[in-house]
C-alpha cells in the first residue's frame, strides 16, 4: 500500500520537468517539500501542494521532495523540525510552511501568492 504512492509521487515530480517549457520558467518557483517517510500526512501534503501549484503557478514551479528518513542530514540545511515542511527556496526570501497544507488560503499567503 505504502510503496505504490511513492512511485506515483516521484513520477509526478519528475514528470513535470520535460513536459513543461524552458527551465527558467520552471525555476521561478523553486519549492522543496520535506517529509519523513511515506506517511498519510506527507502524501496529503504533497497532494495539496501539487493542486495549489497546478492552479496558481502552472508551468512556473519546480517541486523537490526530500524524504528525511532517507537523507536525515538534509534536515539541517533548511532547519527542518516539523514535517511536512514546505520551503520556498525561490523566489527569495525563504518561506516555510509547516503542516499538511490542507488550508489552501494559508498556503497561498505563506507562499506570498496572495497578499496577506
Amino acid at each position, binding site marked *: 500500500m505504502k510503496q505504490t504512492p511513492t512511485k506515483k509521487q516521484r513520477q509526478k515530480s519528475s514528470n513535470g520537468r520535460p513536459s513543461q517549457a524552458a527551465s527558467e520558467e520552471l525555476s521561478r518557483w523553486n519549492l522543496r517539500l520535506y517529509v*519523513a517517510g511515506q506517511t498519510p500526512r506527507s502524501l496529503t501534503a504533497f497532494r495539496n501542494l501539487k493542486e495549489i501549484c497546478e492552479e496558481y503557478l502552472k508551468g512556473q514551479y519546480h517541486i523537490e521532495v526530500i524524504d528525511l528518513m532517507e537523507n*536525515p542530514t538534509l*534536515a539541517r540545511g533548511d532547519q527542518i*523540525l516539523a*514535517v511536512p515542511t514546505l520551503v520556498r527556496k525561490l523566489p527569495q526570501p525563504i*518561506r*516555510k510552511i509547516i503542516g499538511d497544507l490542507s488550508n489552501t488560503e494559508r498556503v497561498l499567503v505563506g507562499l506570498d501568492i496572495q497578499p496577506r
Partner: protein
Amino acid sequence: MSRQNRRNSQSLNALPKERTGISGFDEITRGGLPAGRPTLICGSAGAGKTLFAMEFLVRGATLFNEPGVFISFEESDSELATNVASLGFDLNQLIADKKLILDYVFIERSEIEETGEYNLEGLFLRLGHAIDSIGAKRVVLDTLEALFSALPNEAIIRAELRRLFRWLKEKGVTAVITCERGEGTLTRYGLEEYVADCVILLDNRVQNQISTRRLRIIKYRGTSHGTNEYPFFIDDKGFSVLPITSLGLLHEAPTEFVSTGVNRLDTMLNGRGFYKSSSILVSGTAGTGKSTLAAHFINAACMRGERALFFAFEESQDQIIRNMRSVGIDLEKFVKKGLLKFQNARPSAWGLEVHLAMIHKAIDDFKPSVVVVDPITNFLAVGDQIDAKAMLTRLIDFLKMRQITGMFNSLTSAQDNIEDSEVGVSSLMDVWLLVKTIESNGERNRGLYILKARGIAHSNQVREFLLTDRGIELLDAYIGAEGVLMGSARSSQLARERVTEAERQQASARKQRELQRKQELYEAQLQALRGQYESERDAILLELDEEQKRLKEVADQRLEIARLRKADSRGMKIDENGARKARKGAAAR
C-alpha cells in the same frame, strides 16, 4: 539499550548512573545522572544551565569516552564554541574527533506559516542521525522550550515532547534537557511532567548583596541523593559543585617542623616551631600584629625556598608589601621570584562557598607549602557562624590532605573574652597563638601567649611582643615581686633595679678603697717605727763600741804602766780579771 541492560544486570536493584565528570556533582548525586534517562535542568536566565549541559558532554567525551550530541535551540555552533572556549573546552577539536556533534536548531517564527497537521519527526530524525553517526551516549537539548515560541501549535508540541522523551529512553541515551524556570513553577511550560526521573534546579540567589549559585536536586527517582542546596560556581575550569569531598580525618601526621619565622617563638615551641601541615590560629584584637606574625611565617617559608600563598581579605598586595617593609620584611622579592603569591579579595565579593572554592583552586594551581588566611573572621560577615565554621573545617581538611601548613588570623573583638569568642574554630586548630594587648598604666602593650600547641611541649609564659623595624621581637615579660610588668612599667622597673644595683656596687667599692687606705696607713706607721728602732739601735751600738774602746784603752794603759813599773805577772793577772768584770757590767747596762 544493550548498555542499559548490561548495567541493570550488574546491579540488579540499583539505578544505573552515568558519571557527569562535573567536579563535585557526582558526589552529591552518588554517581551522576540516571543512565539512559532524561534529566531536566531548570533555572532562570544566567543560572548556568547551558554550561552544565555542555560540561556534561565535554567531560563525557574526554573523561569517559562517551560521545555526545548537543542540540542547541538558542545559540549557534560557533557561538557555543566561543562561549565555552573560555573554560578550556575545545569543541572544534572534539567535533573533528567525532566525539561531539553540535546542531543548531534555528526556527524563525516570522518565516513560518502553519497549515494543518504536522509533527516534529524532523527533529527526531536529526537527533537520531546525529546520535547514530557518532554512537552518542549523551544528548543535550538546550533549551527545548524554544519550541513553544517557535511553533504555534502547543498541543502538537506537547504531544511530540512526550513522544521525544519516550524515544530518548528507548535510544538509551542519557539526556540533559534544560529549561527556563517559570513563575512559581519549575519550568515555564511544565516540562517536568514529562521528565519524571531526575530534576535539578540551578539557582542564582542574592543574599546580603552577594550572589551565590546553588544547585538542588529536586527529584531523583529510585536513588538516594543529597537533598541540600549545594553551592556551585563557574570559573575558567568549568563547573564546580561543592562540597568538594572532605577527607574525614584520615590525613597523615608529618613529624617535620616548620619555623614560625620568629626565633623566640620557635624557642617557645620546643625550639622547633610548628608541625608541618598543622593549622595555626592566631587570634587577637585589632592592631596586635597578627598580619606581621603571618608575614614572618611566610618570610621564613620563602627563605627556605618553599612556596607560600597569602589570602588577604582586608588589604591589597601592595599595601601588605609596603606595611611589612616597615618592619623589615621584604616580601616583594619573593613575589618576583614566584615563591609568594597573594590572592586578595573582599569577603563580600562572593559567598562563602565560592571563597572556599577559589581558595581550593588557587592552592591547586600554585601548590604552596604554606598558606596564610588573613583574617578568617571576615567570613562571618558573609555567612553565619555555622556556615563559616563548616567552610573552615573543609579548608583545614583540604590543607591537611595536601600537607600544607596553614596560618589563620582571627580578629577578635576587644570586649569579648577572646578565649570564648574563638570556641567555634579553635577546636579545629592544632596551634593557637593569642596576641593580646594588655592595658596598664595608661598604655597598651602586646603580649603573646601559646594557648595550645598539640603535640609540642611549649612555654606557658606570656612574652612581650614588640614590633620593631627589624621585625617582631619577643621579650621576657618582667615577672617579679611587683607582678607581671610590660612596656614602660617593665622598663622603669628594670631601671629602678639598675639604680639599686649601681648603688650597691658603689658602696662596695667604697669599702674596698677604705680597706686599702687603712692598709697603707698601717704600713706607713710600721715603717716609721722601724726607722726609729733602727736609729736608736745604731746609737746604742755606737755607745757600746766607744765604751769598749775606752775600756781597752784603760787596760792598755794599765799594762803600759805595769810594763813601765816592771811589775810581776801575778798582779797583772788580777787586773785583767777586774777589767773583764767591768766590761760585763757595761754590756748589762
